[in-house]
């Protein structure tokens, strides 16, 4: 138990260290974009018809603290970021936490749900595919799973929308019905939300599941051929116990290990699905901030939140790994 607490503490410190390091990279990237917040806002103002002088830009810079040294500004930014405060958006002049609001958490929830859905399906199916000698079952699983990998998410989304519009007259877009869009959370709003949210989860989960099935199947096939499985069979372990306690359990470690990576992949696929289903979520906001409005302050905040989520997932998966695999425990504590 003492060993385990030590592991959690060491791993936690490592996670925070990673996050600080990443925040430095994110902050530096924000700085590398030509121009700064002051210039950007004032050029925006300029385009709206106001006359701006060089002195105005300088005054704005001082007001935003942009004249302070680079490291000092990073220090202030990171301390605020850890408290959930990301400053104001360059262009919109709104507090970023308020601007993002629940959007980020909705996006994260969508991705996590898709991830969970993917593995709930992929683990039993992958194990079945690796152990079954039934050629028909194996080939049909392979077909479905290749279809999942090859069929782009947006195409699947469009097909479902088309089908639903023709059949039911409802295009299934958005995360809320119109009347609940800006309402406060209530029982009805949750119900409305659940009625909408299954579709993006299904679409995002579709390719994630196909990908996960391939992973689980390959890992299981690998483990089943190992000597310790034969050795366990030679000791009289048999049936489901032999399958679950030996190869399945040992194939689980690399799967848990890759969850953070999977989450990132799903988040990357989110904006295009969101675009088609007209969801308001953080992924599309990030693209908007990066590509269109060049709002580095907002983009940095979203990237930081996303990174923090992945670091958080990795922290949690490492704790789970340590509970299930003694080798991981030993590798960090020494």
């Amino acid at each position, binding site marked *: 138990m003492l060993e385990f607490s030590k592991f959690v503490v060491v791993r936690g410190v490592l996670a925070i260290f990673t996050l600080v390091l990443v925040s430095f990279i994110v902050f530096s990237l924000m700085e590398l974009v030509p121009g700064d917040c002051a210039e950007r806002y004032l050029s925006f103002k300029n385009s709206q018809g106001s006359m701006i002088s060089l002195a105005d830009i300088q005054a704005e810079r001082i007001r935003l603290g942009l004249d302070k040294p680079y490291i000092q500004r990073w220090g202030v930014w990171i301390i605020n970021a850890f408290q959930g405060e990301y400053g104001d958006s360059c262009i919109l002049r709104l507090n970023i936490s308020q601007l993002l609001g629940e959007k980020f958490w909705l996006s994260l929830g969508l991705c996590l749900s898709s991830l969970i859905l993917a593995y709930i399906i992929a683990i039993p199916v992958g194990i079945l595919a690796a152990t079954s000698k039934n050629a028909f079952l194996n080939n049909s699983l392979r077909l479905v799973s290749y279809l999942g990998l090859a069929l782009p998410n947006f195409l699947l989304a469009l097909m479902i929308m088309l089908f639903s519009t023709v059949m039911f007259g409802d295009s299934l877009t958005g995360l809320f019905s119109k009347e609940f869009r800006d309402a406060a959370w209530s029982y009805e709003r949750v119900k409305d939300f659940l009625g909408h949210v299954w579709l993006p989860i299904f679409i995002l989960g579709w390719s994630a599941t196909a990908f996960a099935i391939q992973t689980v199947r390959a890992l299981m096939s690998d483990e089943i051929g190992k000597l310790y499985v*034969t*050795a*366990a069979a030679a000791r*009289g372990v*048999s049936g489901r116990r032999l399958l679950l306690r030996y190869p399945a*359990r040992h194939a689980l470690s690399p799967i848990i290990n890759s969850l953070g990576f999977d989450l990132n992949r799903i988040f990357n696929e989110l904006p295009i699905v969101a675009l088609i289903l007209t969801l308001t979520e953080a992924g599309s906001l990030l693209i908007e901030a990066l590509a269109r409005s060049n709002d580095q302050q907002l983009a940095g905040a979203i990237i930081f939140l996303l990174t923090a989520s992945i670091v958080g997932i990795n922290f949690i998966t490492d704790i789970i790994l340590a509970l299930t695999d003694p080798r991981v425990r*030993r590798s960090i504590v020494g």
Partner: protein
Amino acid sequence: MTRLLDVENLTLQFDTDEGRITAVDNVSFSLEAGEVMGLVGESGSGKSVTAKSVMKLNPSNAIYGEQTKITLHLDSGPVDIMSLKTSNDLQVVRGGAISMIFQEPMASFAPAISIGNQMVEQLQIHSDMNIKQATELSIEMLDRVGISDAGTRFKQYAFELSGGMRQRAMIAMALSTKPKLLIADEPTTALDVTIQAQVIDLMKDLVTDFGMGIIFITHDLGVIAQTADKVAVMYLGRLVEQGSVRDVIRQPAHPYTKGLIAALPQLDDLDTPLTPIPGDIPSPLERPPGCVFNTRCSAIVGDVCTSAIPKFLNVTDEHQVACHLYDEGASK
């Protein structure tokens, strides 16, 4: 001496994408209680597959010949191993009356399950012991095979132990259910020579204490000379010579056995060049007709070697060889 195991006409083929591969061809031998039999041959000779057949542990694409009969003689009566089908029935030959230890002790323990946990699991499958009793017995067994601080080792994982210690733990686990027959598949090959000697001594002691039979698979004739009572030599799935260790090693009759012995390095005369057997063991897909050794044999008698399968002939009462050299009327 009482008979422990009879293997009669063991034939085993594997159904693969390239066709049926014959891995074992009509092999018969027997083993008495308390006897150590060495099963010798190069890689690919079918010795491991033969031993695994006794536990029906070969992969599911294995097809046993119809004449195959393997009988294990227990106090409770004979067990016809080929007729065992369900995993429940098979438990008597899998860890119950027969245990097996493998070449690589590291790979034969599940990496994420503690050694003790795996030992207790086996005991619970094969006996009525509760966890406490099984734990006590397991620690006692670990202690018995010479593992110091057995209580701590019991809780550890395979990767935390040294190579020799792992193989000792493997032996302790294999013996904890008090099997009548132990199959040791190259148990010392992966170990240092000094550790190898310790493990062999340990196994010899345990045979005497437990009065069980051992099938000792190896390609090392030196190890066989030290440990076994009798030896069976396999080549390409067929038995070519068997007999008491003394006879077979002092007066080998089959050209293959002679070759194996000649290929051993001589420590007392380092200048003697090694004399390897020429050529390689053929692929099981291209088994030569007649005597399987005819592609590498230096003592071919004539066409009979490539046309007829040699029968077993007595060299002495306790020493048989399958070679046309000893056919009646054959010129020597």
